């Protein structure tokens, strides 16, 4: 049994121009101890996906199974139990902390809300958490504005860990941090996973970060999953034209490696009232008539799924 199983998940937003298909028919599983990287450009629905899974947003259709139990529509006490098991670390450590709350209180808040802890237990747990994420005890009574970005993100991680979750959605947790601090936070997240067996869904637009931290990677484009594969395989044999373009746009620090960039036409459009066919087709170098039909996700090799009707032709 997988820790997280998502089946045909859909989230549509009603906007003046119609229906925004932010997440459209996405399925995957995440095992204990594992990290699923979700990559894609802004507006591809990766954050919405994360929020729907931990029930910050309600799904339009589909199923979310946590520990084998369907939690898609639970409410009240049951929902609270879900939220103990599934937490989130937000992208922006500047706006995701309450500026008027001391960081110690921020970390204690989930424990208060969950109930069942005595005052001294909460105090003890909070100082343990601060120790765990590497925040100096002397900063206990500081306010967020007194901390730098890296430390703030550590507070966000401590808050997410407070209730011993089994699963954490990390929504671009390092993208607003400088590289040296980014490396510190990535190491922390990986250490915590090793110690506590937490599963992560790691949302990022940075492919080298995704490669570093993930066991599997799922590539999204306008609300749909276009490719999913074990990490190593994705970087050696990517199959979907969009994945290929994304990978080719990575700028490495190897100055002798020639760029073989796949230039995409135009920009990402929107998922409002999309046509039934492949949403990437208007920018795709290989698009044909057949691409106007709905694309099926197909298992090309073990665990490697691609949604492209021309996948065999373009990869031979």
């Amino acid at each position, binding site marked *: 049994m997988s820790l997280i199983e998502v089946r045909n998940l859909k989230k549509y937003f009603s906007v003046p121009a119609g229906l925004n298909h932010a997440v459209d028919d996405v399925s995957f599983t995440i095992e204990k101890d594992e990290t699923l990287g979700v990559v894609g*450009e*802004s507006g591809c629905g990766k954050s919405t996906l994360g929020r729907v899974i931990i029930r910050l947003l309600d799904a339009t259709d589909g199923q979310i199974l946590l520990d084998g139990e369907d939690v898609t529509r639970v409410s009240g006490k049951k929902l609270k139990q879900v939220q103990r098991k599934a937490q989130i670390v937000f992208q922006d450590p500047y706006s995701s902390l309450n500026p008027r709350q001391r960081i110690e209180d921020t970390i204690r808040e989930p424990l208060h809300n969950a109930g069942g802890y005595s005052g001294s237990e909460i105090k003890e747990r909070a100082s343990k958490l601060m120790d765990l994420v590497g925040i100096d005890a002397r900063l206990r009574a500081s306010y967020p504005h007194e901390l*730098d*970005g*890296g*430390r703030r993100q550590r507070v966000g991680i401590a808050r997410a860990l407070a209730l011993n979750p089994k699963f954490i959605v990390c929504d671009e947790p390092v993208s607003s941090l*400088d*590289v*040296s*601090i*980014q*490396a*510190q936070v*990535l*190491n922390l997240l*990986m250490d915590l996973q090793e110690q506590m067996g937490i599963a992560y869904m790691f949302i990022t*637009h940075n*492919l*080298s*970060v995704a*490669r*570093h931290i993930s066991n599997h990677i799922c590539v999204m484009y306008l609300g749909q999953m276009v490719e999913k594969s074990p990490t*190593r395989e994705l*970087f050696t044999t990517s199959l979907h034209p969009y994945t290929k*373009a*994304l990978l080719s*746009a*990575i*700028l*490495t*620090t*190897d*100055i002798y490696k020639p*760029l073989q*960039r796949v*230039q*995409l036409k135009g*920009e*990402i459009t929107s998922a409002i009232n999309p046509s039934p066919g492949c949403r990437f087709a208007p920018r795709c170098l290989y698009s044909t008539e057949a691409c106007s039909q709905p694309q099926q996700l197909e298992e090309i090799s073990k665990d490697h799924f691609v949604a492209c009707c021309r996948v065999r032709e373009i990869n031979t």
Partner: protein
Amino acid sequence: MNHNSEAFLSVRELNVVYTSGKKIVHAVNGVSFDMKRGETLALVGETGAGKTTIAKSILRILPDPPAILRGGAVFLEGEDLIKKSEKEMLKVRGKKVAMVFQDPMTALNPVMTVGDQIVEGLRLHNDYSKSMAREKAIEMLQMVGIHAQRFEEYPFQFSGGMKQRVIIAMALACNPELLLADEPTTALDVTIQAQVLDLINELKGKYRTSMILITHDLGVVAHTCSHVAVVYAGKIIEYGTREAVFVHPAHPYTLGLFASLPSMSQDCTRLKPIPGTMPDPTNLPQGCTFHPRCPYAIEACKNDEIPLLEIAPGHFCRCCNIEERPEKCL
């Protein structure tokens, strides 16, 4: 130090502080560098290193107060921009030196059509009639890949990548000799970043524009710049050609930056971050400002001001313990 009269741009001993209440933030502490015409220099460093302040002091657009220029000179083709009057500077800004700002969402005037924003600069610096300026602006838009029909549209009707193109068109409209690009692709998605970088490279080649590219992304530097200056706590700590800095990085901070990046070719389980954080700019450590975080620091690093030493022809490094560093710790 005398300025190099052959250099196209020569920045000498630039010092900028910000006042914040009674505190003084030491943002730029004695920055000097030279650039030849047609060169692309990258200013690399983390948030708060002083990169943007350096660029803004070249154009003299720092808000004063709180920013105070405490000395230094900026020679552009031999003329010191710092000594120029405000009126003379108006002729430099947008004409000889143009800037592309980091955030395309806020750099455009929201209540003016993008076309008019380009026309404004064109008419200010050239003796163009309205229709001539309009024609030229349309030409600029087309050059950055925007259809002439969008001339009358407002910034909110453009996506992030398209806005950045508008800003590039605006910056290049008067054929500047020096382009200051402050994190031009940071706010953009990777595939759009690729398009914008290609565009900048192409236009730079076409007009032989010199460019200072400010970024924290070493990958962007590797594929666009000819020279690199690594900035830490308001000082250049390493300077050299792209090859020198990327293949033989010398300063422990530069080495640390490279080691912090997740590799695309090797599998490693742990990254090697630089310990600690940037020093407080109101209270910089004595001696080498990097010594509290440096694994190779020795006693001498804590006391003396470290000079920028030439360690190979054209490759400079501000480190007094250069022998101890590992040859390459990537």
